[in-house]
């Protein structure tokens, strides 16, 4: 019983700040402190949200954006993991690829948009390419790091027991790198989700980013906010899902949870 109370208490703590912000925001809006054109009230946004949901417009845009993310992130995850593992295991490959990775990594995906449009046109491909670029580097960098962090003590144990390299990689290196790999995937998915909006802001006829851009041109700040909040909530849900997967995969790890 007390555990249920504890859980309830934690839930309240979890949502309290958001509720306070909403209440203050609503109060300020109603008392006329905030210009409704610049920042609509939470209630106004909720109503718009309901309308967009009812018309099916919002779900359509969400669906389009998610599909783009899945495509771009999927390619980034496969390539990032594959290359990351190969580079992590081979010093030579690391030396050969390090410079190019380090130089290309800091270029923001948005800076690629002009080239992406030139190369792939304004269709799906250019957006998927932008998303791929955003997600690729977190995945590959974390995978390499995770593999490099293999404990030297286990390497010695494996040498003494004459464990073949392939089995060592499978049983020790990869599971040991899993926490870092999962972090890379999580960050990659987040960046991918941010990139889809950026890509859609430029040239698109559907997707959450398009919804926001279109509303901006019509000065519908409530629709803009619905789009923004939707992005935030979906990002949070994606992150939670990956975290849950991570906990299931890494049950052996007892990590610090704060006090």
């Amino acid at each position: 019983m007390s555990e249920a109370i504890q859980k309830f208490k934690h839930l309240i703590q979890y949502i309290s700040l958001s509720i306070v912000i909403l209440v203050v925001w609503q109060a300020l809006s109603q008392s006329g402190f905030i210009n409704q054109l610049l920042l609509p009230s939470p209630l106004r946004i909720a109503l718009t949200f309901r309308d967009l949901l009812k018309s099916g417009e919002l779900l359509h845009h969400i669906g389009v954006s998610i599909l783009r993310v899945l495509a771009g992130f999927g390619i980034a995850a496969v390539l990032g993991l594959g290359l990351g593992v190969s580079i992590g295991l081979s010093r030579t490959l690391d030396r050969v690829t390090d410079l190019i990775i380090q130089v290309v990594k800091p270029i923001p995906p948005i800076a690629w948009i002009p080239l992406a449009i030139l190369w792939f046109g304004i269709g799906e491909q250019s957006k998927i390419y932008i998303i791929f670029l955003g997600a690729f580097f977190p995945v590959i960098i974390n995978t390499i790091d995770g593999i490099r962090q293999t404990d030297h003590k286990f390497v010695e144990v494996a040498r003494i027991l004459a464990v073949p390299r392939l089995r060592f990689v499978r049983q020790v290196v990869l599971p040991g790198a899993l926490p870092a790999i999962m972090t890379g995937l999580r960050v990659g998915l987040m960046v991918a989700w941010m990139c889809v909006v950026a890509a859609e802001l430029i040239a698109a006829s559907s997707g959450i980013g398009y919804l926001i851009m279109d509303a901006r041109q019509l000065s519908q700040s409530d629709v803009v906010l619905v789009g923004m909040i939707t992005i935030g909530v979906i990002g949070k849900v994606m992150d939670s899902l990956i975290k849950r997967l991570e906990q299931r995969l890494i049950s052996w790890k007892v990590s610090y949870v704060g006090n």
Partner: protein
Amino acid sequence: MTATTSADNLVIENLDKSFTAKSGDVVALQGIDLNIRKGEFICIVGSSGCGKSTLLRIIAGLENGYSGEVRIGDRKINGPGLDRGMVFQEHRLIPWLTVEQNVGFGLNGLENGRRDTIISEHLELVGLTSFAKALPHQLSGGMAQRVSIARALVNNPQLLLLDEPFGALDAFTRIQMQQEVLRIWEMERTTMLLVTHDIDEAIFLGDRVVIMSSRPGTVKKIIPVHLPRPRDRSCYDFVQIRKEIYAEFFAEAERPFAYAI
């Protein structure tokens, strides 16, 4: 004691090892000579930094770049091999593998049935059959160290190297583990080479106690322990040997432990 010239003796001749540090070369081991008979239980004691762990790592094949000779019978040691097992001070169990997977970590190219048999035999040997499916973080320090002993024994090495294996355990667990290792040694008749800084542990376990001095690490003295097992840590002969070893480490004037007995 006549030193047999069996083909399986561990022979160390005129072993020197130095490390290159920023401030110049540091001599870790100098002129080590040891002849360890098959099936013998040897304990090496020395203060920290005397190179005793380095000696063990050289025998294990983890260190190279030494001069002198280290061989088992006629085979010169130049790398790790399945004829030698090693137990480290930390258990070094792989955290995401279960106890039985950890024990089986060193088993290569066996069909599953044979593999399972060997694993369960060794879990039984260390008394942890019921923990086969547990993960390392669910074990106590002593249990984890027993798993790592089982892991080191799966390939039936002729020589088991133990590098301060009980150093991280509490006093009670340590004494239990000493008895456990003795029991395993009596069953398996593996040659044991145990490094420790616990003088009592060395006398309790060893057929001979090798005393090392520090900087550079040399063999100062080898003391045979002709006491029947199980040994009584408070019997007269045990205490005499302890005094003798203490005398090697501490000046005549300060021998506080002699009174404590």
